[in-house]
């Protein structure tokens, strides 16, 4: 078994072409918080990947969830973290993928370019530990906000070109009135920008 990544939460191993993801104990958190979070997130992650994969959305193929060790087994995507490979043309594909997620009632909860893998030109979404079911406008807006902020912060030079492409693709694929979502998006931004900052 080879360790292929140590993220902020999990250690990711490779075994015979499969990925094994295990959330590691965080010594800074008390046991009650830590074990509860890890269990909840790993279960949610596996459940979501399974659901999305069955609906044909671009996520790794789920293999199994090992309840005892709280490990997620899934297909390995032979690609690279989008964070280091992001280009403007990826934005459109991401917009469509997120709309697909939302059309299926799933909110990702942690949308950044670190949680997308690029293989050739194709993108895969991973890391569903903070995902949940919702069809509420404000929850969809929360995902859009996270991704927008990820672009603005980490990919600032590309932001002006990429964001409109992303949002346009999302808008044309989301099976819901976009206006309602957009109102919440603006609201999150205002709140975040104008929380009493001193």
């Amino acid at each position: 078994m080879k360790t292929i990544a140590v993220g902020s939460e999990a250690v990711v191993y490779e075994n015979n072409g499969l990925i094994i993801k295990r959330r590691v104990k965080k010594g800074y958190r008390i046991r009650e918080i830590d074990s509860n979070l890890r269990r909840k997130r790993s279960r949610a992650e596996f459940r979501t990947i399974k659901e999305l994969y069955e609906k044909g959305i671009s996520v790794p193929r789920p293999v199994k969830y090992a309840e005892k060790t709280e490990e997620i087994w899934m297909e390995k995507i032979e690609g690279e973290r989008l964070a280091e490979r992001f280009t403007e043309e990826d934005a459109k594909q991401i917009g469509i993928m997120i709309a697909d997620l939302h059309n299926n009632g799933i909110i990702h909860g942690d949308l950044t370019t670190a949680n997308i893998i690029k293989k050739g030109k194709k993108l895969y979404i991973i890391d569903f530990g903070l995902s949940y079911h919702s069809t509420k406008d404000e929850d969809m807006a929360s995902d859009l906000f996270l991704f927008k902020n990820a672009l603005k912060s980490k990919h600032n030079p590309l932001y002006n070109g990429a964001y409109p492409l992303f949002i346009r693709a999302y808008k044309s694929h989301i099976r819901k009135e976009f206006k309602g979502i957009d109102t919440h998006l603006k609201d999150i931004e205002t709140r975040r920008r104008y929380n009493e900052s001193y």
Partner: protein
Amino acid sequence: MYTLGIESTAHTFGVGITENDRVIANERDTLKPLSGGIIPREAAAHHFRLAAEILGKALNKGGLRLKDIDLFAFSQGPGIIPSLKVGASLSSFLSKKYGKKLIGVNHCVAHLEIARLYTGLRDPIMLYVSGGNTQIITYYNKNYIVFGETQDIGIGNLLDKTGRRMGIPFPAGPEIEKLAEKGKHYIEMPYSIKGMDVSFSGIETFVSKIIGRETKEDIAFSLQETVFSMLIEASERTMAYCLKNSLVITGGVAANKRLNEMGRKMCSERAAEFKEIPMEFAGDNGAMIAYTGYLMRDYNQKDLDIKPKFRTDTVEINYR
């Protein structure tokens, strides 16, 4: 080169002096209202009343007179308007009177610069936690970028509001910390993290409902454990995302020992560096404004008005 910096964004009025990049004076006074948060006009009145005295103390400490100062700096924002005006008008007056340049400094950038100076960390992630501020900031593409932030209230406000509901006078942070040390039983609370952002309003409501039903000690303990875990988790996520390897915690809430312990533990588990900065430079202070003003000494700023909503990521950083 002597730089004199004035901090007056909120309830602290501070004057610091640097000789080049070395702090030689750091004097301040903080208004402590008897109840509730800051009342803007009271804070300004406090600053106005004590300005001359604190300025005098700082000059004395440095063995300097006003005419020896080569550069003046003031905190331009973000902050509350009446407070900001005191520092802005005093520094503008001094700069005109002595014919020296005036630099407007972003308060959050100043926190980060003084943290770098005193920890020696070259490129840390900074968790900035104070009354109204809860941000995770780091240097990226020539800017200080806010990667994570509270989507509603600041951590200090959460502690103060909760404290007030439990009958603890403002500021409640230190008393909550003491109570928390005696807490034994963890009460599960809403843990709300969104990417690298956090949100505290859910937990605020939750806690307001259990006051009186659970012991103060257990509430304080559970509240701290929950919100600090969220903050440290968001910081760790930012480190992983930006591929950075060190953390510093600053702002008034950085005085909390448990928060620092958690930061240190998180870093040691991911082989990253964690450094504490002296509390004198973690809370609001004039030295950080002087020091950052010194770093910015070659800037040509056209706009020296106060900026109550000054965003960290709009400051161009060209001295790094």
